[in-house]
Every structure is written in structure tokens, then in C-alpha cells.
């Protein structure tokens, strides 16, 4: 339940986003992310949920002409991570991301997990070994790969690859982790593994997840936001959104009348 004692990790304030072709993909989004909670973004395709997610690690900066308006404030330092003066690289070092399709580098399992640390200039072999082991354990992959860390990541199954990508995102001790439909390319068993993992990760960090699967949102998230055409229609406690939504649009979507 939303209550005053749960600290806010980040919040978007009047966030507008425009793609380089001028289309406005987000319209005045105000939404909190509670610390050590999972917040799910649901809504039909093209509603802006992935766009919103990718604002949090400034992924849109990679493509020229995209424009943000408004703020995403990160606590406890009250930094507006969208501000021009804030380096997107600094933001990505604090907020990591897991993508829709598993996208490991064509490198060894070890190097995939270690890459985030190498980028930070870490070259101490002992420390890297420890961090890689810790991250792989955190991603529930250690037992399956501990004897073949030097194998190519491509030799893993799809579900294992996605857990490897989670380990890669975990190795750098991020404050927030973003998941962009992390199970849409996986089979039901691999999906269940990832969902269980996300529930555990909640103890260490704050999670924002985009999902197409409403049952998934209901199963794993603490808070749910329903978006439609760039607007945040309704945000609230997951139990409440799925049982007693206050908005008619939300109810239509979650009951399958629409979308």
C-alpha cells in the first residue's frame, strides 16, 4: 500500500518527451518510483511505456533530435537526471537496464558480466572475479555456468542469456534497474525464473518494468501504472488497479474489453 513511510527513489514531474520527428510520445507524466518496490507499466502497444522507461537511463540521447521536458528527480541527492548538465553516462552508471530480447555481447560469459566494471576502469582480477560471481549468483545463474565462465555467451539458452544480461546489469550495483518487457522472448519456464528473480532483486534495488502481460504485472509488481497514448491514465497499488480501478479506461483494458 502507498504510505508515507515508503521512501521515494525517483519521481517524474510533468515529463514530456518528443521524438526527433516532432511527435509527442509522453504528455505530462507525474509518477513516483518507491524504493525497493517493483513498479509495472502496462498499456497497449505504442502507449509510450517503453519511451517512458528509456527516459530513466537517457537512452533517447543516443539518437539526435529527441527532446525531454520536465524532470525526473532521483533521491536522496535530488538530482534531475534529465538536466542538460547531468551526463547521461553518470545516469546509466546509477540506473541499469535489461532489454526485451537477450542481448549479450559476443564475448565470454565472464566478460559480459565484467564489462560494466571494466568500463569503470576496474582491472583488479580478484575484485572482478568476486563481483562476477556475486552478480551471477544474484541472477540465479552461477550454478549453471560456474564451470564454463570462459564459454561464449551465445552458447547459453535464451532464458540463461536473459539472466546473464540481468547479471551484467547487476554487477555495477545500480540503484534502479529498468526492465523492458524482459520475458517477451522467453518460454513460460524461463519467464517464471525471471519473475522470481525480479521479486528477489527488489530487496537490493528499485525496479521499473514494462510488460505486455497483465498477469505478469499483477504477479510481480507492487505498483502499477496504466498508460494510453502518452498519458498516464491511472497509477496505484497493484492490488487496487487490478481489483478496483477508479478509471473506466483502466478497467476496460485490464478486463480485456480493449487493447
Amino acid at each position, binding site marked *: 500500500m502507498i504510505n508515507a513511510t515508503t521512501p521515494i527513489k525517483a519521481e517524474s514531474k510533468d515529463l514530456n518527451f518528443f521524438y526527433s520527428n516532432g511527435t509527442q510520445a509522453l504528455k505530462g507524466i507525474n509518477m513516483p518510483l518507491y524504493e525497493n518496490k517493483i513498479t509495472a507499466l502496462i498499456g497497449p502497444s505504442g502507449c509510450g511505456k517503453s519511451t517512458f522507461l528509456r527516459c530513466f537511463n537517457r537512452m533517447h540521447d543516443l539518437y539526435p533530435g529527441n527532446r525531454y521536458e520536465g524532470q525526473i528527480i532521483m533521491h536522496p541527492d535530488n538530482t534531475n537526471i534529465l538536466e542538460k548538465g547531468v551526463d547521461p*553516462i553518470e545516469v*546509466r552508471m546509477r540506473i541499469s537496464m535489461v*532489454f526485451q530480447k537477450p542481448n549479450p*555481447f*559476443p564475448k565470454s560469459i565472464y566478460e559480459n558480466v565484467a564489462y560494466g566494471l571494466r568500463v*569503470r576502469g576496474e582491472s583488479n582480477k580478484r575484485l572482478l572475479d568476486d563481483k562476477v560471481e556475486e552478480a551471477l549468483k544474484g541472477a540465479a545463474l552461477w550454478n549453471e555456468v560456474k564451470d564454463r565462465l570462459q564459454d561464449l555467451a*551465445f552458447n547459453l539458452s535464451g532464458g540463461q542469456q536473459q539472466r546473464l544480461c540481468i547479471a*551484467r546489469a547487476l554487477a555495477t550495483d545500480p540503484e534502479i534497474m529498468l526492465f523492458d518487457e524482459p520475458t517477451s522472448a522467453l518460454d513460460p519456464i524461463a519467464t517464471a525464473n525471471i519473475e522470481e528473480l525480479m521479486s528477489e532483486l527488489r530487496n537490493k534495488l528499485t525496479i521499473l518494468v514494462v510488460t505486455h502481460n497483465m498477469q505478469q504485472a499483477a504477479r510481480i509488481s507492487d505498483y502499477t501504472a496504466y498508460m494510453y497514448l502518452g498519458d498516464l491514465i491511472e497509477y496505484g497499488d497493484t492490488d487496487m488497479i487490478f481489483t478496483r480501478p477508479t478509471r473506466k479506461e483502466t478497467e476496460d483494458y485490464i478486463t480485456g474489453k480493449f487493447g
Partner: protein
Amino acid sequence: MNSNIQKNKASVIENLDAVRAMIKRHKRNDILFATIGLIAIMFGLLALLTLFVDLVMDGYPRFNIQFFSDFPSRRAGSAGLLSAWVGSLLVMLVTFLTAVPIGVAAGLYLEEYAPKNWFSDLIEINVSNLAGVPSIIYGLLALGLFVYGLNLGQSILTAGLTLGLLILPIVIVSTREAIRAIPIAIREAAYAVGATKWQVVKDHIVKYSQGGILTGVIIGMSRALGETAPIITIGALTFIAFLPPSPITTEVPFINFEWLSSSFTVLPIQMFNWLSRPDHAFHINAAATGAIIIVVTLLMNGTAIWLRYKIRKNIKW
């Protein structure tokens, strides 16, 4: 009712016969096109094979060690390729050392750093066009720029730089294509852990595009090996009875650069020279040289294919 079903059965069978006849007709076109394609392939391959066999048959008396270790001579029987293949090797070395770093850096810049606007489009069109400029134009450019402008003389350095310019567009285009083949998801994965642009380029882009770049470089080099026109334009000599100073010496610092300013000849020019002599005995030498150039070119291209396969084997996307 029963008769209705009978009638229906009959019409299904009749219809099936019509469908089978149609499939048969359509399959005839498959066979027809496969035949035409095969003839087209054979036309190209047979022409090359005939040429190669012809050269080998004409030139086979000269396939021996002396042919590679002798200088050119007035007597056809004792004339060899020594100065030509050493010249080709050294010119190729200069070409490689100039075209690869410049071409790869240019390709990386255009693909990863340059803003995408009308100016980069203009550059793109120009680079593609440069690949199609006749090689003799490069020869004229080099004569004006390297020989007279920069006073580099009719040297190995001039020839290497000229051929380097000639294959630069090939290297740039193949670098860009290799980079474009890397999925956006891989780039985003690297940026998402906090990598800078340079870290993404050096840890990922360059590594994963190596195979494609290398292929382009080798194909460019095999083209440069056979180029004659621009080398004649800058004034390569056709009769060279000495070797350039060795790049490696026995004295400190063990490397010397005098060879760069040495005059030289290359394989296709030696071949051209022998071919233009009235004495038929020299034509045997020319045929042997032609066969050797073809073999080296095929070997280089074969290496390119093998390397690409080997490097791509570990990368699946």
C-alpha cells in the same frame, strides 16, 4: 442427397487434377530458370578458367625457382621476376599501411561520430563514386601531387600512396558496411552499462566488425596488386636489374627507410613489358607472370573468405 455427395467427390477429384497440372506447369519455370542461372555461372567461370589454363600452358616452362630469383634480362630464357615481385611486395606494404588506418578511421568516424545531415550524405555519395573512378585518374592525381607537388619522385612510396588512395574507398565502404551489420541492441547494451562512445567503439564496434573490414582490405589489396595504369602514369620503370635497399638491416636501428625512395617495378608492369616485345620467347615469361598474378589474387580472395568465416563463426546475429 447421396447423389449430391457423389457429385461433390467427382468435382473435388477433377479440381485436384487441375491443381496438379498447374503445379507441374509452374515447376517447369523453376527448372528453366535454374538452367539459365547455371549457364550464366558457367559462362563466367569457364571464361576465367580458359584464360588461366591458357596462361599456364603457355608459361609452364618458366615455373621454376630461377624465374623468381633472376633479374630481368635481355635474354628471355634467363629473365626473371625478382625485382617485380619484391617491388610489388614493398608497394603493397606501403598501400596497406596507408589505406587501412585511414580507411578504417574514416569509416568509423562517418558511421559512429559524424552527424547525419546533408553534408554526411554528400560525403557518402562521393566516397561511393570514388570507388568507381578509373584508376588512371588516380595515376594523374598522383603524378601531380606526389611526384611533382611533394617531390616524392617515381618511388615505391609514391606508388604505395597512389594505390592506397585507389583502394581507400573500398576500405571505407567495407568498414561502414561491417559496422552497420552490428545490431543496435548490442550498442544499446554497451551504452546502458555506462560506456562512453570511445569505449563502445574500441570494445565492441571495432572488434565485431573486424571480419568485414579485413575482407574489404584484402579484396582492395588484391585489386591494387593487379593495377597497372596508375603505376605506369607515375613512371614506374620496366627494366630494373637491382633490388631496393632492404627495409631490415643488421646495424642499429635495424630498420631503414631508403627503400621508400627507390625506383621499382611491379608484376603487372613486368608482364606488360614482356608482352610488348616482338620476341615470342618473352611472351612465355608474360604468360607465366599472368598465371602467377591470378593465383596470388585468388589466394588473397580465398584468405578473405576463410578469415570472414572464421571470425564470423563466433558471432551470431
